[in-house]
């Protein structure tokens, strides 16, 4: 089964040599004559498989090694150890044939021709990717429909808004109908409406063309709306790989209790930490005037216990209990470093 997967990653590693410098000019000069290096394992043995047509959320805190993995998968970086195979290709071998089958969007930088009308970019890409006239027409019509390019296709790229530019960039990555689309932070810096448009488009493209999508993001709403499965990395290692719902079950013991106090001074009476045996991470109290928000770990105290304790101590208006959102779960995972799965 593994050999048939669209993306197969095995023990992928990337080591960077990093110069050790003491601070200040003196340190710099010292390093110039007697350079010392440290090997940093930015990616330290990551393995996973992705089936054709999946949308995978690839997440992790800054500096976790996400981008480095994406860059190895797209053939930009050569792995130090291990390998990845995408649709039968090893990216760094026969790179030119390989990249015809993938599309890449780096949210932080554009691949459009900055000074020219957007349409020009697509015309050049058509030649670069050897897209036939017929396929080009068809593909542009489809992308136009999904990404709404019509309004700005004749404007110079430098005049586009960030949201328009991102749509244009995604279209540019899809012109040659790639089998795999790599999206590195496609919603970074966008407003709510623009984010929504992008997400819908990604979903549609995945459905209509069967494109496999690898998505890195810091916006967990992207993940919730788009990905069934996530791969999480931290410090170069994989810390979670599975369905989002599993993650919820596994780490989702957090609940959120919200209520409004009748008297603000009652706050002191809510001595949860004395009553229950919460560790630092298990309990979080937020207050805003009379409003109180308590996040707690149900492994330590059940919802019932918490509710009855609260009600026995204070008078409240409007009390509600909620599942912790995915953001909270992931925050806990990042913080704990997670356990390798």
């Amino acid at each position, binding site marked *: 089964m593994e050999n048939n997967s669209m993306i197969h990653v095995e023990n992928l590693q990337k080591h960077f040599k990093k110069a050790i410098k003491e601070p200040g000019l003196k340190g710099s000069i010292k390093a110039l004559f007697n350079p010392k290096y440290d090997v940093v394992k930015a990616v330290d043995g990551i393995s996973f498989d992705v089936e054709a047509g999946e949308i995978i959320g690839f997440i992790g805190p800054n500096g976790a090694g996400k981008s480095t993995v994406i860059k190895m998968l*797209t053939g930009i970086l050569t792995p130090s150890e291990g390998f990845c195979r995408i649709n039968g290709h090893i990216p760094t071998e026969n790179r*030119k044939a390989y*990249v015809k089958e993938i599309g890449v969007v780096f949210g932080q*930088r554009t691949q459009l021709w900055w000074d020219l009308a957007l349409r020009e970019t697509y015309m*050049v890409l058509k*030649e670069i990717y050897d897209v036939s006239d017929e396929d080009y027409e068809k593909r542009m019509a489809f992308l136009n429909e999904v990404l709404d390019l019509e309004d700005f296709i004749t404007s110079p790229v430098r005049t586009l808004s960030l949201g328009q530019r991102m749509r244009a960039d995604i279209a540019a990555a899809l012109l040659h109908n790639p089998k795999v689309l790599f999206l590195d932070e496609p919603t970074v810096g966008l407003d709510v409406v623009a984010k929504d448009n992008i997400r819908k488009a990604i979903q549609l493209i995945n459905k209509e063309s069967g494109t496999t999508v690898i998505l890195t993001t810091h916006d967990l709403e992207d993940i919730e709306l788009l990905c069934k499965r996530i791969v999480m990395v931290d410090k170069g290692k994989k810390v979670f790989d599975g369905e989002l719902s599993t993650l919820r079950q596994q780490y989702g013991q957090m609940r959120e209790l919200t209520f409004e106090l009748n008297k603000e001074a009652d706050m002191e009476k809510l001595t949860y930490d004395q009553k229950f045996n919460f560790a630092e991470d298990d309990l979080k109290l937020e207050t805003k005037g009379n409003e109180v928000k308590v996040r707690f770990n149900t492994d330590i105290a059940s919802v019932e216990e918490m509710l009855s304790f609260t009600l026995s101590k204070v008078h409240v208006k409007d009390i509600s209990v909620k599942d912790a959102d995915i953001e909270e779960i992931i925050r806990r995972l990042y913080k704990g470093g997670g356990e390798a799965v």
Partner: protein
Amino acid sequence: MRKYFKLHRIFIAQDLKKLMEYKVDFLMGAIGFVLVQAVKILTLGIIFASIPALAYKVNGQVVDSWTFNEVLFIYGFSLIPKGIDHLLFDNLWGMGYWVVAKGDFDKYLTRPVNSWFYVLTEKFCVDAFGDLFVGIVLVVYSVLSMPADIAANINWFRLIPVAFVIPFAVMIYTSVKTATAAISFWTKRSGHITHMCYMTNEFASYPAKIYNNVVKTIITYILPFALTAYYPAIYLLRGESVWSLPVTIGVSAVLFFISQLVWKLGEKAYESAGS
């Protein structure tokens, strides 16, 4: 191959369109290059106003000498291969200054095109028309204003082998830039190395014989810019240094091979940049 010619044409067209968007920028660039050349020619003029000719002496004996017109001719000729490289392949400069350091090289690696070719041809540098224009004007002017006896030495059939060698001369420029730009794959920035090596071409715009052996060896074989300027020019003028023509072809082929090797190895060492 056909695809690559087509792509190159498209890139040139794209840049010409861009030019229309930024006319002032282009104009300033071209004027700048003409001004730089004008100052250099003026310097030559001032020097030759006080000396009759440039002489090469061994033990006090004049072995060879070049008149103002001949020096002007060599200088003008040197601008032609230099200008062609500047016109077509200027984009290489960016590699060592910012493309690699900022991680912008990623883009070239995600396209189904030879990365070197892509970087090389992405920009069409019209400023170089300043170089080419001055070069051609100098060559024509210096021939027209030569004393009749010197001009009579010029056999115009020599133009055929020289024209044949010019693309190889261009390749010398391009290969030196390629190899030094590729150093940035390891060092992140190598713009100043490229600049330093490139600037040795300034030596090569004058008769190579006037330099000591070290400089002469460097500009003939190591950073062989003399092969792009003095040697073909003096062959055209006097029929001297016929040997330099095949040497130019051979040396440029070797340099090209080395520069490609450095580029390929560098690509594997490329580390991108955090995003």
